[in-house]
């Protein structure tokens, strides 16, 4: 389709709207803010995750401790007695070591992500 040259000229001269002077600066500022937000939100999530894991770790430790004390005098009802006593203590140690390593790993990851530049 051919352009109406007169109209094209008329519109180009008089119909083109101009933005405010600060338009480009405003756009770049919005972009900078959003870039920072995008970096900050995962770090925040990571921090919350660490807290949840730590709380869970403490809770499980307490449960295991209470459990290990309570189970021995009264028995479990489950046939753990069939297992040698060393298995139970090994299981508890395994859980504790597992949680310690996982928390350490999460903590290291968090420290690496907090370095932005």
């Amino acid at each position: 389709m051919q352009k109406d040259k007169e109209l094209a000229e008329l519109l180009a001269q008089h119909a083109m709207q101009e933005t405010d002077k600060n338009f480009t600066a405003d756009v770049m500022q919005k972009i900078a803010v959003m870039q920072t937000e995008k970096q900050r939100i995962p770090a925040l999530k990571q921090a919350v995750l660490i807290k949840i894991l730590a709380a869970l770790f403490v809770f499980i430790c307490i449960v295991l401790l209470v459990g290990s004390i309570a189970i021995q005098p009264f028995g479990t009802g489950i046939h753990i007695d069939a297992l040698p006593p060393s298995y139970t203590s090994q299981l508890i140690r395994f859980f504790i070591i597992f949680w310690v390593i996982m928390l350490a790993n999460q903590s290291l990851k968090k420290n690496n992500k907090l370095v932005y530049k």
Partner: protein
Amino acid sequence: MNSLTDKLVIDLILAGNSNAYTVLVNRYKDKVFTLAHTILLNREEAEEVAQDAFVKAFFALNNFKREAAFGTWLYRIVINTALNKKKLKKLFTADIASVTTGDEPTDLNHLLQRYENKDLKKFIGLAIEKLKADERICIALFYLNELQVNEIVELTGMTAANIKVLLYRGRKHLYEALQALLKKEMNDLI
């Protein structure tokens, strides 16, 4: 950096030079703002939509496939953002079955020469606002954003024939509206 093509500027941005985006913003800001204003007919909303479109485009640059020109891709974002702002789903709803025929007003040039640029800008703005939304947007995309009919087809999803009808009607209505406004102004002055 201003002389670089859009593609080279995009390469720079994707390589980590975010500041290079100012080149694209400066290059397209008036066209993007005019398009947003054509859809919304409100300066503040148009400015907001134009800024949002640039921000969205920046964060979506990784997904820009470079099959179309950057401008066309950006205008699509502008249209979608403006439609979201207006809470509309479709850009074009008008029935375009009939084509009005007729020539453009002949004494328009004569009338235009009597006015200063500042007044002309006002009258042309008013005349554009009097057009139907679909005609107005087609006129803006074709004459101001300098898109080809096939690119407008891609952006709007309408057929080429429909776009041509809208352009034809829009041009005719624009001339008529402009002539009516200028004549009224002349009569008021006399």
